[in-house]
């Protein structure tokens, strides 16, 4: 006779959407601030954006407990790096570290869908998108989370940049100005909020430039 065990899953999905856009000398990282479980809202004010280094900012949707654990690992690895190399990690280096950290738990993954944004060694904006087990790719813009399927097609329409695989090589950074990119992000979140129940409340936007990070908060629909 089969023993009856409670069906318990170690995972939960806290919803939310994250977007990042890379510019010629800036990077915009944005996420909504709603944290939910099932049909309930746990918090209207939960930040999904975390600064890992001066030039690298991580935004993750999915299971926020796993996201917190992932951040802790990355923060401690970054601290060790700073002690050993006497400098902050660059964004491409952080990107590979994140990929390896995610793959390390290949057989019990972090349920985190990440978008890493920042400035590369040349000062140009860079965005890296990930899947749950660490495959990553440098792109000009990215969206992850519950509203990503609503947002990505629109960003493709507005920002579709030539693929970095094309020969002869073409620059993939968006020609938008910083103000236009922020405006686009606000538009995109307002639309996603209309049709995705897990996205809403407030929008947190971080603009990363060589001289520092600026944060903006915008209200979204709370229903």
């Amino acid at each position, binding site marked *: 006779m*089969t*023993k009856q065990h409670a069906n318990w899953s170690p995972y939960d999905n806290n919803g939310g959407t994250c977007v990042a856009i890379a510019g010629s000398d800036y990077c915009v990282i944005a996420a909504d601030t709603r944290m939910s479980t099932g049909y309930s809202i746990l918090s209207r004010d939960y930040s999904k954006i975390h600064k890992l280094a001066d030039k690298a900012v991580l935004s993750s949707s999915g299971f926020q407990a796993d996201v917190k654990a992932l951040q802790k690992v990355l923060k401690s690895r970054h601290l060790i790096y700073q002690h050993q190399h006497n400098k902050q990690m660059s964004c491409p280096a952080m990107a590979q570290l994140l990929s390896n950290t995610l793959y390390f738990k*290949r057989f*019990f993954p972090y349920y985190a869908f990440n978008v890493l944004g920042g400035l590369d060694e040349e000062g140009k904006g860079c965005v890296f998108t990930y899947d749950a*087990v660490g*495959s990553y790719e440098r792109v000009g813009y990215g969206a992850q989370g519950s509203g990503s399927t609503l947002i990505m097609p629109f960003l493709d329409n507005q920002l579709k940049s030539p693929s970095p*695989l094309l*020969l002869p090589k073409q620059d993939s950074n968006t020609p938008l100005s910083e103000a236009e990119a922020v405006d686009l992000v606000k538009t995109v979140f307002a639309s996603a909020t209309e049709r995705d129940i897990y996205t809403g409340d407030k929008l947190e936007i971080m603009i990363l430039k060589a001289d520092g990070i600026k944060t903006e908060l915008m209200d979204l629909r709370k229903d």
Partner: protein
Amino acid sequence: MKLDTSGFETSVPTIGFGSSSDMLDELSSVPSFDLPHTKEFDGFQKKAVDMLKHAKGTTTLAFIFKGGVMVAADSRASMGGYISSQSVKKIIEINPYMLGTMAGGAADCQFWHRNLGIKCRLHELANKRRISVSGASKLLANMLYSYRGMGLSVGTMIAGWDETGPGLYYVDNEGGRLKGDRFSVGSGSPYAYGVLDSGYKYEMSVEEASELARRSIYHATFRDGASGGVASVYHVGPEGWTKLSGDDVGELHYHYYPVPPAIAEQVMEEATTE
């Protein structure tokens, strides 16, 4: 449910979600798979795989000819029915004279190819000579064999040029390793094989071979929904690899099959110039 446990390795670590080691009293002394406690075993497996298995569906190919090795791939990554990326690098540069192709799980392929690159470099430093294609593919195959049955999804080809000339091996997550002249891996491979096999001649020039490779990928992306994006073609010669072309397959379609302008459009053109 009677399962064949004859090939079961007791050293496989348990990764159960809510499963324990004594699921059935009669089987507690016999090694058995950790099974989830659901009514619908089949459906659960599919759901578990779907939840975390990402980025499969692809077309990659490689073949040896007189001028060396030609390697080509598409660039689409799909998560179920959603296209997660149209610009995935599926041809991985292990070192300046060896390439690996990616098919199956993107993270698995990326990670193990990077790991292989590290191992190849260590071999060079330890032995003061480059590793052979046979050796590199063996390293990868042995690594994947040790993770057999744990759900890795890797279908890769290792292509390179070493002291014995051009080399091409197919390695997969079962630990299988095959030496050959022509391989295509992925959901679009049947279509690619059709074009590749019918046009293949060992004495082809580099230009002919690269055009054949590009065309094979294009035809596969045309018919296979899980393949698309940019068709990349690389050539591996005695001096190492070079990227020969990267073309958007949408544009390639009109390059191969141009649409003649309709008569009505021609008339409109004439009217506006007057």
